[in-house]
């Protein structure tokens, strides 16, 4: 059946059952604009209909949580009236259609989630995944996405403090572009979205509305890619960082003057979403006049205006008496402001255009009555085989040449090609910049510090989503711990394939279980997240790819936090954490040297894991160099320190497999001779820093200069 002959609801990506549900809610058949609204609001992207039932398992409570999941961003208490807001989002499909604009508008969207809460956005992170770089298309996508993040983030004036990057064929037709943003605010600035107060005015702020991404959320992010996608492709959204910058300043001034009752950003589902959610959150209704919406193109239908995902727009709810002052503030910042609605009681969302009532629906029904699915799940058959296989002992070789092989990998090599294209210093908060484990920010005028890390590992999650996700939480926690902070809150971005496949649904459920387990162990609340399903192209699903955004908090923060580049000759090298376990499953060694992906990843240790993290946080306030052991194992962790500091090392007494093993809960710590304080976790003295050779005892060595050359060029030489 061709699109033309399909019934309207199917063309909008709505199933027959869902259409029936609309009929039940309305007690009549919907008008076109109403159908448009339901189709977007009930899309996977907006309604979480396949995931909601499971996300409830994630722990979201802690005494320091001010706003948990549900609002635009999670908010935690930093003491003395300071709050931090954190949120992560995906912009995968738009970035595949148009990498620069897709990534740029992804940054714009996540920033609005932050300043919608009343916070000034102070930093962005960008976890990225692409196909292998030997394919020109993937190089084009990587360059475009990085340029888009730089182009938008730098111009809007929010520094990008890190991210991560992975390459795998599974992402070739479905790259992952996740963006996370952090904001800080003082308690009295906190704003929520609820529209209370009958007669209050809804003012649309920002850019004019065009046919941007019509159906973007419902179609792009809620359906798989295939040949038809060309036809489905919504018109690409063009980011305007200048408009966003003005919007940020205007909104923050509105908050400072206490002029808004509630506010909501316009993202997926645009005006439909903002008006219905504001109204529903306040248990109210709203009358909306589409003729008052400034449009960029003539003759847009009501449905198009309601569904448009034009960027850089906000909806502010203000008391009638405040309207004039709001308009004045908007004018000062050269931001367009148009009253488009009034808050009503009775809970109905009534939309008018050209004098006609084009929509009249229960506001809450768009969000609350959305269908919820418990999709069937089943453990993939491929697992037994993969677990049975797997490398447990690597054939001994020359450690020097193996290390060079690893350092030449684009995901292990120097990533400064990426983060030097991002302003990562603006606001003068960046104490530890990208290039270390967690980036560390100070909050000026206080002794408080925030460390942030983003971590994902698609391959490991493919082998065992539950174990691997628990390990991601542990790795993120360790990354912020070695920056001297205590793991404080998590946001997660769950990137998965087609949820209508039981195997994918199983991966998803296992992932949530693993995240819940680790967060409970560490007593860290999950304060927000995002689910991106249908990352599938021509039937091939991506690896299950949860990305964990970890926020660490310290007060006081270390005055001289550990850095990879503070190593000097003579310092002792210690491995802190358990020894003996060897884990090659989804390790960099297995991938790069053996070209295999199999085995069962080690599980986290519920006792040792948390202890190692506590130890790391404590040590980071007194040691010059600390680095967690992750991709590439101990050898790469040591090499990263040597390369950053320009000093070689000599280590001895390690088994060959211990050089590459990636088992969890371990970090390297450097200190002056005899200076390591007593610890209640295992610690092994490995050797000393010095010379210009990376020397692994009997296993071999490599010169610092050649290692540096290889590591520096790993990414650029492939572009």
């Amino acid at each position, binding site marked *: 059946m061709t699109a033309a002959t399909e019934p309207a609801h199917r063309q909008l990506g709505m199933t027959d059952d869902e259409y029936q549900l609309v009929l039940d809610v309305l007690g009549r058949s919907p008008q076109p604009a109403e159908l448009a609204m339901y189709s977007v609001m009930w899309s996977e992207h907006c309604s979480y209909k396949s995931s909601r039932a499971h996300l409830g398992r994630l722990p979201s409570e802690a005494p320091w949580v001010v706003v948990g999941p549900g609002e635009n961003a999670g908010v935690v208490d930093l003491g003395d009236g300071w709050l931090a807001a954190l949120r992560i989002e995906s912009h995968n499909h738009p970035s595949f259609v148009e990498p620069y604009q897709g990534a740029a508008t992804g940054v714009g969207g996540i920033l609005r989630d932050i300043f919608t809460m009343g916070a000034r956005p102070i930093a962005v992170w960008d976890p990225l995944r692409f196909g292998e770089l030997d394919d020109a298309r993937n190089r084009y996508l990587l360059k475009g996405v990085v340029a888009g993040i730089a182009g938008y983030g730098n111009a809007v004036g929010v520094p990008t403090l890190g991210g991560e990057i992975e390459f795998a064929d599974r992402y070739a037709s479905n790259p992952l572009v996740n963006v996370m943003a952090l904001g800080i605010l003082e308690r009295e600035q906190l704003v929520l979205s609820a529209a209370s107060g009958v007669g209050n005015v809804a003012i649309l702020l920002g850019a004019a509305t065009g046919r941007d991404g019509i159906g973007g959320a419902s179609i792009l992010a809620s359906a798989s890619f295939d040949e038809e996608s060309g036809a489905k492709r919504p018109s690409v959204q063009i980011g*305007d960082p200048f408009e966003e910058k003005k919007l940020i300043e205007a909104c923050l001034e509105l908050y400072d003057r206490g002029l808004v009752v509630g506010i909501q950003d316009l993202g997926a589902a645009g005006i439909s979403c903002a008006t219905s959610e504001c109204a529903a959150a306040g248990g109210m209704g709203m009358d909306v006049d589409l003729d008052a919406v400034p449009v960029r193109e003539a003759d847009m239908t009501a449905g198009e205006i309601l569904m448009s995902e034009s960027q850089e727009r906000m909806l502010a709810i203000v008391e009638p008496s405040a309207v004039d002052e709001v308009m004045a503030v908007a004018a000062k910042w050269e931001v367009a402001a148009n009253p488009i609605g009034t808050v009503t009681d009775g809970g109905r969302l009534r939309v008018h255009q050209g004098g006609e009532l084009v929509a009249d629906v229960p506001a809450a029904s768009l969000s609350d009555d959305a269908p919820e699915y418990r999709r069937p799940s089943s453990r993939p058959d491929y697992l037994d085989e993969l677990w049975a296989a797997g490398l447990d002992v690597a054939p001994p070789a020359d450690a020097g040449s193996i290390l060079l092989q690893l350092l030449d990998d684009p995901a292990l090599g120097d990533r400064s090609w990426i983060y030097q294209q991002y302003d990562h210093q603006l606001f003068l908060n960046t104490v530890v910049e990208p290039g270390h484990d967690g980036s560390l920010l100070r909050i000026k005028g206080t002794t408080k510090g925030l460390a942030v890390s983003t971590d994902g590992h698609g391959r490991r999650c493919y082998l065992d989503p539950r174990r691997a996700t628990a390990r991601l939480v542990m790795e993120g926690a360790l990354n912020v711990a070695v920056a001297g902070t205590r793991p404080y809150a998590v946001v997660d971005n769950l990137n998965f394939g087609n949820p209508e496949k039981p195997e994918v649904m199983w991966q998803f459920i296992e992932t949530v279980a693993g995240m819940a387990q680790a967060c409970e162990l560490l007593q860290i609340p999950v304060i927000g997240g995002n689910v991106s399903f249908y990352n599938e192209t021509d039937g091939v699903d991506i690896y299950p790819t949860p990305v964990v955004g970890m926020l660490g908090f310290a007060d006081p923060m270390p*005055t001289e936090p550990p850095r990879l580049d503070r190593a000097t000759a003579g310092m002792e090298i210690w491995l802190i954490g358990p020894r003996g376990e060897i884990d090659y499953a989804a390790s960099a060694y297995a991938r790069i040297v053996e070209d295999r992906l199999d085995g069962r990843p080690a599980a986290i240790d519920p006792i040792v894991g948390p202890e190692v993290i506590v130890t790391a946080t404590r040590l980071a306030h007194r040691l010059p160099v600390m680095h967690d052991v992750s991709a590439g194992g101990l050898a790469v962790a040591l090499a990263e320190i040597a390369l950053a500091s320009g000093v070689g090392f000599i280590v001895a007494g390690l088994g060959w497999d211990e050089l590459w093993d990636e088992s969890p809960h371990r970090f390297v710590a450097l200190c002056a001779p005899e200076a390591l304080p007593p610890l209640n976790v295992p610690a092994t003295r490995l050797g000393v820093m010095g010379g210009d050779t990376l020397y692994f005892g009997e296993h071999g060595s490599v010169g610092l200069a050649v290692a540096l050359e290889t590591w520096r060029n790993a990414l650029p030489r492939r572009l």
Partner: protein
Amino acid sequence: MVFPGTNCERDVAHALRLLGHDTELVFHRHTDLSRYEAVILPGGFAHGDYLRTGAIARFSPVMTAVAEMAAAGKPVVGICNGFQVLCEAGLLPGALVANRDLAFICRPIHVRVENTTSVLTAGAELGQVLQIPLNSYEGNYVADTATLDALESGGRILLRYCDDSGGVTAAANPNGSARNIAAVANAAGNVAGLMPHPERAVESILGSTDGIPLLASIAAFAPLIGSPS
């Protein structure tokens, strides 16, 4: 000076406050700067850098007053985007175009002090090598040969990109700027523009304090900087 799209204004104010100076943020619609001893145009993306970087900001109401201060010999300094605005406004020669490699550059670079009589360098030493963060896409200084020669002979080139030991080499030129130029001044020396961000180098916890001599020079030029005259 705050234009729509400016984003380094708070950072500059923070840095000057650390150096003991009063500062006020002045919005671009103001027309009276008479109470100020010096004005700094901070970095950012005024008007989104649309059309041309600095092109639209130059017409902001406040720019007339800025030109008057410049003519009156008072300190006028443009940092990064502020430098671009001053060039567009004709208060400084030349222009800034896209970096040689067409990529945004955010990293610490080295510059060598070439002149010690300007508003920006009076407090620095000749030949001094400073490590200061660069943060720009359009930092590539261009001007015709006659202009460049005039700048040379007039001692109006204030800073040049160099390596960590002060060598002014092609390899040490991060963005392709003509003759490694990182900062220039007008003939009187009271109007200066520079590409790197001195305000990002005033605290050791952020990696460098080499920006201090430059920011301090502005104060030296204007003892009462920021405080009502």
